[in-house]
Each structure stands twice: as C-alpha cells, then as structure tokens.
C-alpha cells in the first residue's frame, strides 16, 4: 500500500517519528526517576508522542509499527490514568518497545518483517493484568460513496475512552491533493493538526477507492480518518480545515449501549472538561472482554469531489520549523565561504580607491557587514545543540547500570551548546566510548563504593561549555580513577614503552598511554582498573575533527576526559605563516604560542639533543622543526646590500661556523656579520600542540590570522602527509594547510626521547643544586682586629659570650675566664696565625665557644676564641680560595660583604691550642 504513497510522506513520517522517539526517551527516564510524584505533563507528552507515531503508522499502513505503538500507548494510558504505577519493569518493557520502534523506523519498508512479538507479549501481559484484552476490536462501518461499506477495526479501549469523555466520533475524508498538498501541508501536518483537537482512532489512505476513482474527474487520493473529538461537527470541520460535507458523525449509540450493558457496576465516567485538550480523563472503564459491535452509520455523506476547496488563511506557520536537506545547507555554506573570500578580495582591490569613488567606503562597509552576517546565519543553520547526542546517554547509562548492578546517576550540563552538525554526529561514537568506560570500569560496584566511604550512587557529569573560541566537553566521573601502575604494566607488556622509558615517565604521561594505539585490546579490560576501551579511537576521532583530548585522573577520586573541539569544520581560523616565498596555514586550534628568538640569542637558546634541535622554553625542551627543511623547500637569503635573494646552501645555522668555509670565504666577512644581525635571521617559532605534546615550527614570517575555508586535497596531492587540505586566501592565492601530526611524522620527531632528555636534565639540575648546597655555608662573620674579618661555620659554634676584660684572669701567659664555674681557656688568633691582635683598648670582647662532639655527645666548653665583634650570622655561597695566611684551621678565604674574610675551622684551632683530646700544641 505504501508504494502508492508519495515517497516524501514516508520520509517525513520517519523523520518526525524519530524526533518523537528522541523526545520520549528522556521523558521515560524522568518518569522512571519521578516515582510517585510523577508529573502528569511528562506522561502526557510521552503519550501524545507515541500516539502520533501510531496515527502516522496506521495512516501509512505500517502494521507492525502501528500494533506495537498501539500497545505501548495502551500501557501509557494506564499509567496516565493512575491504574498502573511506574516501576522499572514496566519501564524496561517500554524502553524495549521504544528500541524496537526505532529499529522499525530505521528500515521502514521492512518494518513489518521486524519481529516485535516479544515486546508485544510483554506489553500485553501488563494490559491483561489490568483486565484489558489487547486487540479487542470494535467494528465501525461507515458508508461512503463507494458501494462497499468501509469497516474500521478499532481498539475497544480507545473507543470507550473517547465516548466516556463525551466525544463524538467522526468519519473524515480528506483529499490528498486538494485538501492537503494544495494547502501547502503534508499529510503528517494534517494528521498532527487533527491530533491537536481530538483523537485519531484510525487513519488510512483509501486505496479501495482508487479503483473507483478512475472514472472520477481527478484521481485524488482519499485519506480517511476516524476522529474522536468533543467538538461539534461544524467546529470539527473548521478545525480540520475540511469542508463540512467531508465529515460525517458516526452514530455511537450502539456502542454506548453495549458499554453500559457490560459495565453495570462501572461507575460513570467523569464528564469531560471543557477543552478538547483535556486528556487527563480518569474515568473508570469497564474491564470487560472484547466488544464487537457493528454500527451502521446513518448520516449520508457523499465522497464526490467537492466543488470548492475551503481556503483558510495560512495562519499556522508562525515560529515553525522547516526541514531542509543538509546537502543544500552544505552547499549554501560553501557558497557563503566563497562570498567571504570574494569580499576580502574586493576590499583589498578597492582599498586604495576610497578617495576616487565617493561613497565607496560605506558601500564596502555594508557589503562587509552583510556578508559576515550572511555567513554567520548560514553557519548557524548547521549548528546543532550537543544535547542531541547527550540525551542518549542517560538511557545508555541506565541500561548499563542495571546490567552491571551498579547505581549510576548521570547529569548533563550545557546541552544547549551548539556545534556544527557534522561534528555533533562524529562525536557520538567517541562520547559513547567514554561514557561506557565510565559506567563499566570507572564507577565501582555499590559495595566497593560503600567500602571506600563513597556515596553508593556513582556520578557521571557530561558538561559542554565554550572556552576560548572552542567547545569543551568534559566527561567526569567519581569512580576509582586510573591506576597508573597497572596502565604502565600493561603498556610494557604490550611493548608500547620499554622498561627504561617507563622509568622516566611522569604519572600524567603514563595515564595518557591509554590513548596509545594498541593499548586496548579485545582482552577484558576490566582487569585494568580504569578506562581503556578504544581510547585511541577516541583520540584519533577527536583529532580528525580538529580537536584534542586530555585526561585527568586521581586514584580513588575519579577521572575527567576533556575534549576540545572547534565550533565548525568548514571555516577555521588559521595562522598564516611564511617560509621563503611560500605561505602556509596552521589551524589556530593547534597553535599554542609564538616564540621569537633573536638571531644573536640563537646559539644560547637552541641546542641539539639526539641530533634534533630543541629550544629551551621555560625549563622545557621544545623540539623544533624547520618548516623549510621538512617540506624540502629551497633555502634563500637576502643579500644585505643588494636586497637580492640568493640560494643559501648552508643547512643549519647552528653549524654555520664549521661548514663550508670556502663559501664563507668568498663572502665578505662583514656582510656575514650584518646578515646574522639582520631581522630576517631571527627565529620565528610557532609552538604547536599535538595531543599532549608541544613542538616548535621555525618559520620565516608570521602573518595575520585568517578565517579560511578548508578545501580537500585532490587525489594528486593526497599523498602529502604534511597537509590536511588547501585553501584560498583573501588575495586569491592558494595555500596549503599544515597538519601537525603529519609534520611530526615527516620530521621524525620522537617526543619520548625528549622527555627522557628532559628528565635527565632535571636530574642534572637537582645534582647541581645539591652541589651548590654543598658550597653553601652558614657562618658567623666576626672581626678580630678592627679590619680583619673571620668566618666560622655556625655548626661548629656552641655559644657566643660577651665578657669584660676585667673578667679575664692570667695564669702564666695563658688567659682564662670564669665560665659557669670553671676556667675556660681563651685562644687568641694572633698566636696561631699571621693576623693582627685584637685591640687591647677594648673593655668588652666576645668569645666564641666552639662545639665539640666526643663519643656522640656535646662536651663541656673547651675554650673560647677571642674576637672583637660579631658582624652577622648568614648563609653564603662561596668558593674558597687559598690564602697566604697559614695556620691551624685556616680553610681559605673569600670576599664577603666586600671584605676579605678568613674561613676558620675552630676545632683545628682547639687542637693546636692543646685543649682537645690531650694533643699537644
């Protein structure tokens, strides 16, 4: 039957039904979570959506589709009327039905051959549990102009429900061309319109009439619907926008009678509320068996072609949407892109003409603005909210949680963030991968979560937001996180990294190994506590879209996968760089920063590691690629005097002095110097990002950022891995778009080697720091004679005491002071070394009492070294020099605070003075 129906009707139906299914799914989830406090609105929405699918399916004679959606509708009706409580079993069945409907829609022509018996049986079990016999039919017969009577098989429940609400049933005939198409509608629109004022009990296209219509004037297809509404016939006709004659009211007394007879004990239903929209009828229906009634309808309606089509104003199109073919939009977008380029060319061409042509400036400005807005508008038509794919995840997570016996909540933020349609579509798979990993591996089972003192319900957050002209999608969970050790073990086992490499990897690098191709395999990944399934696919897909992936994880706390994506694929802001007289575009998403190294600093900042040039950039080693070399462009330079362009045969500036001395000799040495100072010999380095690695590309010149329209490579240029496409610049010139991954591959950059080198250097730095620390001394700076400075290590000093000269007692030529009850010998430096004596004029002197450790214990004070003053106690970092002053304990000298200072080891002095260990002086 459907073959006779216009192809576009079916396409519309499928598209619309898919939309319905998509809207049903989240609502069902809400229903499931809502439990008791379920909003009637939600059920109504689901009900209506299923209802219109059923209507359309019946109309287009997709039997299976109709049957299934009908049974689902019946169950929903019970839910709506509160006869059935929502439980997860019912929801499972409804979800299963939903999936089956989707399968049918995917292949609508074969929909009748798709088995749906299981779903039907399960649905019917519920219905039977409520005493409703599924499939109970009412035969309604109408009399049309065609000789035979048309018999509708209606579902008893719906008819009863409608009648109970005081609705009348009409038999309406619409003519496909005259009543529907000529009024700019599609059958689906017509049907939906009918549904908005009542209930469609059955609908079909009257093919039986076709044969009869052969002799009629026009071969217009009759579309027949059985329509239940509270409206009176004239209003109903108006609502349907059909001529009165095409509407006939069916006599329902027979049905009513039968219903009454069957429902003796059935309470009479609530009367319908005033509006036709009130679908919350909670009238009790009788729960009897099948109702089989034959109704002869009485009113006379002829199906003859009506003379005048009723024409009503098209007042129902405001704020509506229009389905547009995507390829048309793509074409429009390409054209808009070209328009932008042409505008740029125009602006450039006329740039100098503003004075000569009056009014030109404002015209150009106008064109400029309109073009931009036009382009933006067209881009927007292709934008889709990310919610279209986000919304499928609650369902996936729910199903997985049930299968795995876990409790998982998923929250969605930023579903309204828009991305180009093509990106949204391509994101579906990577996101599904990630979400599945979250639910499967990251979120722990309930008891494990309880043990870990976590909320038994795991959380997944899907968050989309704008950041820096890009769209970020963060998928976070509060699961167990990724165990770096296990990842590393597996990576080593798989030969992705060697053991020695592994030792040098940071935790972040290790965790990012899950993105490595070949990391995940068919082997059950659950033995790695974390994610891993197809993460390389996630990364490669994201990078294909011009975005990149980052991963953050904290063991026991959870994991966040962050995808950064461009807003659109077709027009990408790109940095234009120049090498020699070539120009190249680098997509801005890849660009991290620019670094400018002046020619004079090149030797200082650029070095070689494993034969590759690297730039020291904020303690990081940045591998460098010379674009000209990677692309094998001929090197040239400008002669500083003539400005002429010459071929430069030297390969690397770093090797300049050693190479090609002959060639150098032929050139003026002065020229050479000047040339090196010339700005053209400065290094312009564009730092690019590839995954989590950065590298620098040395270019000759940096130009503007331009919005470019990406054109694919032709079959003759596809082999060039360094490029991802070509584009036409504003000035009309064709340039290639560089591909970061391709450049790295072409230049044979090995980030692993560099990371090892970096690690090595960090260790070297640590070693140097340790060495510096060893040179660092904490000293007490003091004076002997006024202008003589001494430094004594602090850790050799026990106390510093101030004494007055009168306290000093002489025993022979030895001096003593009373220090805590015993005689402490004083040591005068000038006795042991060639230094001046402390001035004898001083009334007060200081003594420095060295700390002596014997048998692991600090001993009593042994002696005091006489000094005149204490200047400072400080940490100094000095290299000691030898001094001519000789004596016990003289370590050397250094300049401290502008004074030559003698460094002394006091213990040696004590030994020399004979106050330690009984050693003689």
């Amino acid at each position, binding site marked *: 039957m459907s073959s006779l129906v216009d192809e576009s009707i079916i396409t519309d139906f499928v598209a619309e039904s898919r939309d319905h299914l998509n809207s049903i799914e989240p609502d069902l989830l809400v229903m499931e979570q809502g439990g008791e406090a379920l909003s009637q609105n939600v059920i109504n929405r689901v009900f209506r959506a299923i209802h219109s699918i059923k209507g359309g399916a019946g109309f287009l004679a997709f039997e299976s589709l109709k049957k299934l959606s009908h049974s689902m509708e019946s169950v929903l009706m019970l839910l709506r009327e509160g006869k059935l409580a929502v439980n997860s079993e019912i929801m499972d069945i409804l979800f299963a039905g939903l999936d089956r409907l989707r399968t049918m829609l995917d292949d609508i022509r074969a929909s009748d051959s798709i088995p749906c018996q299981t779903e039907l049986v399960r649905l019917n079990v519920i219905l039977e549990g409520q005493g409703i016999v599924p499939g109970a039919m009412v035969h309604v017969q109408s009399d049309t102009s065609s000789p035979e009577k048309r018999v509708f098989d209606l579902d008893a429940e719906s008819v009863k429900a409608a009648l109970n609400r005081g609705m009348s049933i009409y038999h309406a005939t619409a003519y496909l061309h005259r009543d529907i198409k000529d009024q700019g509608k599609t059958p689906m629109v017509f049907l939906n319109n009918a549904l908005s004022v009542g209930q469609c009990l059955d609908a079909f296209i009257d093919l039986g009439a076709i044969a009869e219509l052969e002799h009629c004037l026009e071969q217009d297809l009759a579309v027949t619907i059985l329509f239940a509404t509270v409206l009176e016939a004239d209003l109903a006709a108006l609502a349907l926008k059909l001529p009165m004659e095409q509407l006939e009211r069916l006599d329902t007394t027979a049905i009513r009678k039968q219903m009454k007879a069957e429902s003796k004990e059935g309470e009479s239903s609530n009367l319908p509320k005033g509006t036709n929209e009130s679908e919350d009828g909670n009238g009790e229906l009788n729960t009897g068996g099948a109702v089989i009634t034959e109704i002869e309808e009485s009113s006379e309606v002829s199906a003859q072609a009506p003379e005048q089509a009723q024409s009503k104003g098209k007042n129902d199109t405001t704020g509506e949407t229009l389905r547009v073919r995507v390829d048309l939009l793509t074409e429009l977008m390409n054209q808009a892109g070209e328009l932008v380029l042409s505008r740029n060319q125009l602006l450039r061409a006329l740039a100098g003409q503003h004075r000569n042509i009056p009014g030109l400036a404002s015209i150009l400005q106008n064109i400029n603005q309109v073009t931009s807005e036009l382009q933006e508008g067209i881009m927007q038509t292709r934008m889709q909210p990310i919610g279209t794919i986000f919304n499928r995840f609650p369902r996936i997570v729910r199903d997985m949680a049930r299968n795995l016996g876990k409790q998982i909540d998923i929250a969605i933020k930023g579903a309204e963030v828009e991305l180009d349609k093509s990106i949204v579509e391509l994101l579906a798979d990577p996101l599904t991968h990630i979400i599945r990993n979250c639910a499967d591996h990251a979120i722990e089972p309930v008891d494990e979560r309880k043990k870990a003192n976590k909320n038994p319900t795991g959380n997944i957050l899907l968050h989309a937001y704008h950041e820096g002209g890009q769209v970020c999608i963060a998928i976070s969970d509060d699961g167990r996180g990724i165990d770096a050790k296990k990842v590393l073990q597996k990576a080593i086992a798989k030969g992705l990294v060697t053991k020695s490499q592994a030792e040098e990897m940071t935790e972040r690098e290790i965790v990012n190994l899950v993105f490595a191709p070949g990391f995940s395999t068919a082997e059950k990944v659950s033995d790695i506590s974390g994610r891993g399934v197809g993460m390389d696919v996630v990364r490669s897909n994201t990078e294909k879209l011009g975005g990149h992936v980052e991963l953050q994880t904290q063991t026991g706390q959870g994991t966040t996968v962050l995808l950064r994506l461009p807003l659109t694929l077709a027009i990408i802001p790109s940095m234009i760089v120049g090498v020699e007289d070539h120009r190249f575009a680098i997509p801005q998403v890849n660009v991290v920063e620019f670094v400018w190294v002046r020619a004079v600093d090149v030797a200082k900042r650029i070095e070689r590691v494993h034969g590759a040039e690297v730039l020291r950039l904020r303690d990081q080693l940045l591998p460098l690629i010379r674009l000209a070399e990677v692309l094998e462009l001929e090197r040239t330079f400008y002669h500083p005097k003539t400005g002429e362009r010459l071929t430069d045969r030297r390969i690397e500036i770093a090797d300049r002095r050693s190479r090609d001395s002959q060639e150098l000799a032929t050139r003026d040495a002065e020229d050479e110097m000047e040339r090196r100072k010339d700005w053209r010999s400065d290094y312009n380095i564009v730092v690019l990002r590839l995954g989590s690695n950065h590298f620098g590309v040395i270019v000759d010149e940096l130009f503007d950022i331009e919005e470019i329209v990406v054109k694919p490579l*032709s079959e003759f240029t596809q082999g*060039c891995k360094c490029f991802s496409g070509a584009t036409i610049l504003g000035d009309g010139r064709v340039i290639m778009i560089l591909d970061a991954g391709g450049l790295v591959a072409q230049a044979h950059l090995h980030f692993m080697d560099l990371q090892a080198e970096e690690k090595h250097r960090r260790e070297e730095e640590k070693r140097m720091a340790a060495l510096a620390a060893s040179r660092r001394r904490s000293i007490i700076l003091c004076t002997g004679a006024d202008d003589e400075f001494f430094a004594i290590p602090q850790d050799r000093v026990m106390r510093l005491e101030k004494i007055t000269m009168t306290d000093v007692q002489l025993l022979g030529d030895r001096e003593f002071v009373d220090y805590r009850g015993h005689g402490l010998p004083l040591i005068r430096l000038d006795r042991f070394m060639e230094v001046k004596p402390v001035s004898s004029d001083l009334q007060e002197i200081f003594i420095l009492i060295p700390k002596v450790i014997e048998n692991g214990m600090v001993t009593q004070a042994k002696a005091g070294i006489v000094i005149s003053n204490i200047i400072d106690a400080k940490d100094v970092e000095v290299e000691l020099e030898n001094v001519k002053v000789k004596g016990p304990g003289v370590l050397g000298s250094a300049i401290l605070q502008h004074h030559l200072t003698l460094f002394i080891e006091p213990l040696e002095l004590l030994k020399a003075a004979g106050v330690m260990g009984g050693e003689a002086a």
Partner: protein
Amino acid sequence: MSQFATFRLGERMFGLDILMIREINRLLDITPVPHSADYTRGLINLRGQIVTIIDLGVRLGLTRREISDNSHNIILKTDSELTSARINIDGKQMSTSMDLVGFLVDAIGDVIEADDSKKEPAPANVSEAEGRFLSGVIKTDTGLLVLLSIQDVLHGN
C-alpha cells in the same frame, strides 16, 4: 571527425580531444605542493576552485616546463562533468579524475579536425617513458598529431 586542441611541449605537437577540455587559461600563479609527485606542479585558484596542475613535461619524461609568455594551463573536465555530458570518444566513456586537474603546457595551437579512425600506434621513435602515455598519432595536413592517453597520464604509474 573529431576536433583536437593542439598544444606544444618543446618541439612536439600534441592533441587532446576538445570534448575533454573544460577551459584553457593562463593562471600561472601555481602554488607548489611539497612532497607531492614530481610531476605535480602545484595548485591554482580557478575562480574559487582549486585545480591541481600537472607538469606534462615531467610526466612525459621530458624536462620541467619553464613558465614563459606562451605557457598555458589546459583544465580538464572532471569525471562527473564528462559523465553528465555523456562524452564518448572512440565509443568509450572517457574518464579523467574526480578532482579538477589541468596540464601545464608550453604553448597552445589551433583546434584542428582529424579523423579518429585514422589513428595509428605511436611511432617507434618516442621514448618508452613517453610512449606509455600516448594513445596514438594521426597524420594531418600540418604534420603528425600525437594523442595523449589521459587515463594513463593521470592514473598510470
């Protein structure tokens, strides 16, 4: 009878069925594509569309063409253009490439009429490299017209 656009590479005159040709232009600002095949001269901007230009000299085993005042690009029709126009040559549906492609040649000559059926195999004096890309020769009033086998030029090894 078919009409052939003639063009010159060095001293030799070649012919190409005009039904295969989209246009002939002098857009000689050709952007080279590093790492592409040696005979891929580069890309040009043909009113907003990018066309790959093949250096026919290099392709036929001759030297790289120098751009001169007489240099031209012969832009071929794409596969879809040929298909929609149902262009048959020698009774065969002709095929070029899905992408826009053109040949850089030294000079353009007249369009001449010649009888396809008089086509002879390429003479022995052409080099083997060159011979692979030729479909034959036709004797005309003005001399020998060497015909290219576009299929081989574009897709041969």
